[in-house]
């Protein structure tokens, strides 16, 4: 959505008064600040960072060739793979894959937010549930994600309790985190068990093997991709790496820089589920999904690859830059576009919504370089935001 400088300023001023948001974001950032130095300074993490930042440069240079190769490899694996140039194209593809009466469960996907998949499916009659706890809370509040990895960062426990009370018709104590999580778990498990389609994102996809790599701690992605009959992966063209090993490196890096000292689950998914246990005859499905689909969204990325925004495409969406950003610490998601917020989120907004939408946001950047300091992909984030300020677009 394009807004003027004054409109953005107004929104950012009023966000300063949002006590719930300030509390949630403040606590989240404090917790992150207390642990990230310990993780970043590890020798293995440093080594991985060097490798992945090189890899990201390679990916950016070969972006077109890589995503095309991935589509070929995925197709060979028996996966239906598509390139979607626009948001609308992606939705039309989904429209054909998913029938209007189906129950759909979904794990966290920023590409999904970008194309507005939840609202799209709901409006055509699908029942849709977010299985990631943060995203589930966001769904209850009907908002955009505050941050790349922790979408509900701006919603403190007190507000979660209130949202749960409304959804489940029962009282929750804000300090009963276990009780809230258990309630969501039971509710969502039931939905997952009955769902027809599971939508997930992807941290990375390999061009050579056509393997989709995801990293998570909750375990909801695994359930979402394996329990329903159909598994749809929503991802984007810049997430394709040469090999599966590269993908795993990227996924680990994403998890470390998001502040986790090790990921709970890393999944590699290459084909729909099957078994050859009876006489070596392949039968599909076994325990997992019967059909698998991958949609690679472009939505401005390929154009950006040859513009002053290209460095932004090296981002692996770990969210570290947002969690150290002083502007984010007081304004939260108010400093952002329709999907992406703060720090690199301003650059992402330029890539997917246009420079004219991002430019008014860019002026609130302090150029303090806190973001650059933590970025595993070695992106000059504040430098790119400054280029937005100086771009000639009105």
């Amino acid at each position, binding site marked *: 959505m394009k807004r003027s400088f004054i409109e953005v300023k107004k929104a950012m*001023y009023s966000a300063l008064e949002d006590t719930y948001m300030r509390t949630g974001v403040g606590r989240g950032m404090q917790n992150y600040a207390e642990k990230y130095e310990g993780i970043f300074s590890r020798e293995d993490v440093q080594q991985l960072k060097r490798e992945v930042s090189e890899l990201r440069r390679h990916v950016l240079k070969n972006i077109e060739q890589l995503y095309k190769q991935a589509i070929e490899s995925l197709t060979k694996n028996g996966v239906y793979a598509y390139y979607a140039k626009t948001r609308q194209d992606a939705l039309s593809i989904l429209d054909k894959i998913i029938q209007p009466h189906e129950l759909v469960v979904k794990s966290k996907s920023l590409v999904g937010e970008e194309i507005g998949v939840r609202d799209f499916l709901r409006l055509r009659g699908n029942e849709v549930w977010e299985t990631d706890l943060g995203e589930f809370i966001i769904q209850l509040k009907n908002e955009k994600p505050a941050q790349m990895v922790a979408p509900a960062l701006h919603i403190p426990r007190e507000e979660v309790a209130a949202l749960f009370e409304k959804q489940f018709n029962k009282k929750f104590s804000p300090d009963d985190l276990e009780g809230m999580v258990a309630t969501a778990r039971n509710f969502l498990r039931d939905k997952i068990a009955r769902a027809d389609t599971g939508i997930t994102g992807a941290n990375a996809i390999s061009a050579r093997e056509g393997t989709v790599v995801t990293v998570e701690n909750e375990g909801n992605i695994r359930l979402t991709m394996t329990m329903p009959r159909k598994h749809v992966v929503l991802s984007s063209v810049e997430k394709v790496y040469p090999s599966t090993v590269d993908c795993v490196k990227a996924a680990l890096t994403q998890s470390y820089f998001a502040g986790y000292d090790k990921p709970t689950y890393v999944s590699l998914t290459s084909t729909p589920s099957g078994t050859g246990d009876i006489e070596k005859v392949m039968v599909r499905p076994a325990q997992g999904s019967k059909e698998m689909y991958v949609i690679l969204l472009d939505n401005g990325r390929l154009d950006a690859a040859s513009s002053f925004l290209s460095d932004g495409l090296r981002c692996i969406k770990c969210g570290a830059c947002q969690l150290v950003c002083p502007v984010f610490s*007081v304004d939260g998601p108010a400093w952002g576009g329709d999907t992406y917020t703060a720090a690199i989120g301003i650059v992402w907004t330029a890539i997917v919504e246009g420079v004219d939408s991002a430019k008014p946001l860019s*002026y609130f950047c302090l150029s303090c370089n806190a973001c650059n300091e933590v970025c595993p992909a070695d992106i000059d984030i504040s430098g790119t935001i400054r280029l937005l300020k*100086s771009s000639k677009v009105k």
Partner: protein
Amino acid sequence: MPNLVALDDVAKSLVNNLRRFRNPLGLSIDKLTEWSKGLSFDNASDTYLYTGGLYQMIPYINSLIDGMNRLEGSIPGGIGMVKLLERFGFNVSSFYSSVTAKETARYNVIITNLYSLLKKEGINFGYLGDEEIYSGVILYDLGLDDEFGEIARQLAKKLKEKRVAKLITMDPHSTFILRSIYPKYVEGFDVEIVHYMELLKADKHKRDKDTSKIFSIHDPCLLARNLDLSQRYRDFAESLGLKIAEPLMSKRHTYCCGGPIENIAPRVSNSIAKNRCTQLAKLGSNALVACPICLSNLGRACKDRMNVYDLLEMV
């Protein structure tokens, strides 16, 4: 109804002032050179002290931000402001009503202190005086590349005229812009830029440790991340006898004072500064900075909770 100040108004006003007065706030030159009255300089030297004007501007920045806050309804008392603007249009220089001599004296001392340190080490240097030109850093930060280039070329020309080979700088912003950005905008710019912390020898200014006061040390962003001077900053503070304490988010992971957007969105800027004060105030009631922007912004935001000092005030 509060009036949110538009970006173009701020930008235009800064650019016009720079063109007319060689500083973005439109101050008369004597306010910037006042500190040097009665001091001697060796203008035949190829080394010059470059103040960049930022320390001298602090009281006026404070007054400007106070005015903008009134105008934008962040603090009461904006009615007169609105009337003034209606008559004369937006100009940052309409805001300096309340600057006292005592305030200007405080910031002038910071520069004379540096002068004395340099002299004490036997360093010979000149000073451009009323010919000094502001570096243009604020224009660069606002993305006004053409206007920035114009200023950069003017200052570079002036330095060439005076045969300056080396500039001693005193704030991280001017240091960074002159060292890393000027060469991209001014062909053949090869003046060596040295921040005073890189030049002075900390152990030459040793003083006994005063343990009665603890200073929470705040790393200015550019000083820590772009100039990599966090360690020298600490060495200096220690040798000056200051007892320092490390807040959450320090050195290369420091948290900005909010200053860089004070003229864009003073209310946001102030909230950031207040957050930083909370982190700093956990360690005591004194904070140490080494940057005029931090000094001004944290100074204002922390004033109920702590005293904020610049390293150069402590010598």
